[in-house]
């Protein structure tokens, strides 16, 4: 029985009914990864360790946990002990971490098997997975098209049915947008819900780890294991983690959903609008009520983000200096030369651009005008959200104004072109709010995603709404053709 395209829930059933063993499941997963290697989803495979762990799982008659024996892919931004971790960058091309990220450790402790590390935009900077040192990832739905980014490899691996789920990280939309472009489900939790220990930092006040999977239900399963307070991360929430599956089937009668006026959805591509309207009708059928809301400062999200994220990353990436780990240039004249050569050789252009912008935004004379100003506008944006969540439960937007595009067709002349694609996702990172993207049809034969944004700590509400949508539709069941890739 083929395991390709099966969800965690389905695979759990197969394992529990002994239709397949953990070993067989892991082996078939690894074979699928090899079969579809042209997608370029994976940077490093974990064949030996995964095989060994799987063979150690003996089927018993006891009730097993959801994730026992479940093969997962981990975004190559999470440190994994003994397993190469590169952030898809030359500067970490040979880096083998001596420790494992908390989020991954929790999944592995729950029984999951890491079968490999997925390709991504270098250091999570990008929206198309075109900045990786290891080459572009293909969108499984169309060869030569981007899967979205920065968690492009994870999204493609799930969309191609190689793994039922994968981890990703989201700083400005890097889980949700690739999920949308690849026709799968991706969740960014509340900031602080998942520990950032071991997650190689891009922008500390915006980064959050989360699941990509075939269904909202599967996302809930992963989130249950990934979440929780971590002493090693002072920015992690010391809040109880609810069981995200508990209320997932709750009816949503009377739930108020807000449409954001300032997003001017009427100006979007007509097909994108059409999908959105159809989804709106679906939710109305399920009992939700729609309200127009105003977030007056939301159009400032993109410039705000592109002041803050580069600033934080310019500092976070200073540790990549060739001294204690990572790429070190040869023939350096002195220490400064070592830094300059190692970093210039090791980082790609987009990373360099962002470090330079960040350095500029923090520098003397510009700090108040750029960095501080942006953090002030950030508070205005958050205040807007706090205000609307007093009258609505959820906000709904398309995940992205457009669907996947051809390699090299956006942002090469003008990087800002690509930045503006993050319009709908970025504000939830600024405010630290949870948001989910679910597939809701196609536009020009490419997947389109629907985004739900929730209030602080309300992932269960989002998962509930997403799950009901999926119970009453079959967009999440669509599978790409993949004949161009095998």
């Amino acid at each position: 029985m083929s395991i390709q395209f099966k969800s965690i829930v389905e695979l759990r059933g197969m394992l529990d009914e002994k239709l397949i063993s953990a070993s067989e499941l892991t082996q078939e997963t690894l074979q699928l990864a090899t079969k579809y290697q042209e997608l370029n989803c994976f940077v490093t495979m974990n064949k030996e360790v995964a095989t060994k762990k799987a063979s150690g799982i003996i089927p018993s008659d006891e009730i097993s946990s959801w994730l026992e024996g479940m093969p997962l892919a981990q975004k190559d931004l999470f440190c994994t002990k003994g397993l190469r971790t590169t952030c898809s960058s030359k500067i970490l091309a040979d880096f083998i971490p001596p420790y494992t990220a908390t989020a991954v450790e929790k999944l592995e402790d729950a029984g999951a098997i890491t079968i490999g590390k997925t390709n991504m935009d270098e250091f999570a900077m990008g929206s198309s997975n075109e900045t990786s040192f290891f080459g572009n990832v293909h969108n499984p739905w169309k060869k030569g098209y981007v899967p979205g980014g920065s968690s492009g490899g994870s999204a493609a691996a799930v969309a191609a049915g190689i793994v039922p789920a994968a981890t990703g990280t989201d700083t400005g939309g890097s889980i949700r947008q690739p999920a949308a472009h690849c026709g799968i489900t991706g969740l960014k939790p509340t900031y602080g819900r998942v520990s950032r220990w071991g997650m190689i930092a891009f922008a500390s006040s915006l980064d959050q780890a989360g699941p990509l999977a075939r269904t909202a239900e599967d996302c809930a399963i992963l989130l249950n294991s990934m979440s929780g307070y971590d002493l090693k991360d002072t920015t992690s929430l010391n809040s109880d983690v609810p069981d995200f599956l508990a209320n997932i089937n709750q009816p949503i009668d009377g739930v108020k959903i807000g449409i954001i006026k300032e997003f001017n959805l009427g100006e979007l591509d007509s097909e994108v609008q059409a999908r959105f309207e159809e989804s709106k009708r679906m939710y109305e059928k399920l009992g939700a009520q729609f309200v127009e809301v105003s977030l007056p400062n939301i159009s400032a999200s993109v410039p705000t983000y592109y002041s803050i994220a580069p600033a934080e990353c310019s500092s976070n990436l200073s540790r990549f200096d060739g001294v204690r780990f990572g790429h070190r240039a040869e023939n350096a004249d002195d220490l400064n030369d070592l830094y300059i050569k190692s970093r210039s050789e090791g980082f790609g252009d987009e990373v360099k651009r962002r470090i330079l912008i960040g350095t500029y935004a923090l520098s003397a004379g510009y700090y108040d005008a750029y960095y501080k100003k942006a953090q002030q506008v950030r508070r205005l944006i958050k205040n807007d959200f706090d205000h609307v969540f007093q009258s609505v439960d959820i906000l709904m937007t398309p995940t992205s104004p457009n669907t996947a595009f051809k390699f090299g067709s956006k942002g090469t002349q003008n990087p800002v072109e690509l930045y503006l694609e993050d319009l709908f996702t970025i504000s939830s990172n600024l405010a630290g709010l949870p948001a989910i993207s679910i597939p809701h049809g196609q536009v020009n034969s490419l997947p389109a995603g629907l985004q739900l944004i929730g209030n602080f700590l309300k992932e269960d509400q989002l998962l509930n709404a997403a799950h009901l949508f999926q119970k009453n539709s079959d967009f999440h069941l669509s599978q790409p053709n993949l004949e161009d890739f095998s």
Partner: protein
Amino acid sequence: MDQETVRTICYLARLEIDQKKSSKIQKDLETIIELIGGLQTIDTSDIEPLYNPLEMTASTHEDIVNSDNEKEKFLKNAPASNEDYFLVPRVVE
């Protein structure tokens, strides 16, 4: 953005830009700065900056050692080291 500023921020970031790419990078930077400069029009008087979305305070740890000597592990990862130290090109003070 003048050449001098680009040179300064490149040095602060310890990056050097390829001669061939330098005018494109400069143009890119100017475009991005124009984007983020758009925030100037927003009135933020009396608004406290929001540096982290969590409005809470930090947890702290006890003053008790819980780390072991992991010298070998760290030095092994280093591009240049001997059995005791990380090594870099000699710095003259």
